């Protein structure tokens, strides 16, 4: 599977202005159990962070705190100077455990909806689907897509939203070898445009000069 060069993916999307994510002294507890204590992180444009650690160590909880779904018990999260609450919508691309696809909706209809909802142009849909090699499935209802194909479609949605900071929860979970390579090139294209990404993952993802954090050590 040749590694697609970052420039091949060419929906005409402008560069991002610089958006840094600063996390300082974050601690998170769930049901009385402390998952993360004193976690700090700076994510400058172009950075990539891979979070690993046994399940139940708080990877997902940390991502959900960064997205503003969960209030941390201590510490601060800042996008530039703003807390996640106000600004999360404009600068966060989110990929949760679930792909956000409706069973009886086709990728074409879904991605058009997400483009309209986030105020992006629909022209970027096809190039991005080609980048994830799912363009042939554009009119097949999501229920009849495989888990891997659904995940690729969800990754297209994340890219389509054109947001600088990506939070990806197990992005490569159901992906095969080809899928992981295409994910790597999508992330490389995103970072080349000044975007940044934090991913929680079990698998070894070899994204060039990505910082690796083992959450198990943070308790």
């Amino acid at each position: 599977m040749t590694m697609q060069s970052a420039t091949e993916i060419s929906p005409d999307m402008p560069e991002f202005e610089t958006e840094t994510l600063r996390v300082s002294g974050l601690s998170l507890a769930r049901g009385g159990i402390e998952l993360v204590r004193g976690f700090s992180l700076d994510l400058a444009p172009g950075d990539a962070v891979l979070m690993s650690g046994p399940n139940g160590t708080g990877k997902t909880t940390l991502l959900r705190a960064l997205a503003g779904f969960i209030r941390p018990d201590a510490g601060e999260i800042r996008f530039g100077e703003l807390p996640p609450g106000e600004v999360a919508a404009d600068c966060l691309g989110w990929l949760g455990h679930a792909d956000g696809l409706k069973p009886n909706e086709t990728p074409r209809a879904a991605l058009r909806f997400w483009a309209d909802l986030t105020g992006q142009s629909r022209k970027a849909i096809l190039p991005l689907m080609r980048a994830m090699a799912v363009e042939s499935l554009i009119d097949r209802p999501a229920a009849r897509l495989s888990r891997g194909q659904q995940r690729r479609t969800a990754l297209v949605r994340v890219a389509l939203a054109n947001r600088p900071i990506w939070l990806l929860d197990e992005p490569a979970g159901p992906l095969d070898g080809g899928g992981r390579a295409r994910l790597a090139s999508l992330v490389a294209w995103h970072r080349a445009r000044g975007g940044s990404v934090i991913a929680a993952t079990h698998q070894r993802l070899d994204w060039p000069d990505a910082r690796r954090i083992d959450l198990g050590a943070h308790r």
Partner: protein
Amino acid sequence: MSALRAIFMREARLAWAGGGGAAGPTAFFLAAITLAPLAIGPAADLLSAVGPGIMGFAALLSVLQSADRLFGDDHGDGTAELYLLSGVSPAWLVLAKVTGQALATLWPLPVIGCLGAMMYGVPVQPALMGALALLAAIPALSLIAGFAGALAAGIRRSGLLIALIATPMMVPVLIFAAGAGRSAFEGDERALANLLLTAAVSLGTIALAPFGIAAAIRSRLG
């Protein structure tokens, strides 16, 4: 504004096609209308007296019947998270969603309510008033069902829990909506008052419920 239109269109399209669209509430309403006389008995004067009330009651139950699909699916398949992160104000987003779904699935209720009332021996004019009251009640019914559905999103077999949570909140709109039909049938002058009160409750619910639903969705994602 186009984002809200996008949500409205998507929810209406999905509700219309998937999940049986209007078939669910319609089938439930017809079943209730058919079974009630078998339980109450064929006495014509009795049936016509309870006719308007049965219509209101059955309409309420058919809205409740499809309540868990309103927000339960979004909670499970990740859509709720994405909606909250879309930058659209949650209350407006929820209102657009419930309006889309209500129009796509509940439009037959007033029609069936009118025909059903006539089947129970209610004259045309009160039957029409009952149907009008049902139409006025639909916003309140669907938003309250949405609120209960959002609170119980993702819980296994949440149907019973949603019914228990929504029942007390449906009391006012049921009293006024069924009251409109009944007063029209009994010829006392409160029919219009009941209709206006139904509309008032619906407007109040439109103003308040979206914030409650948005808060419920956010708390269930926390």
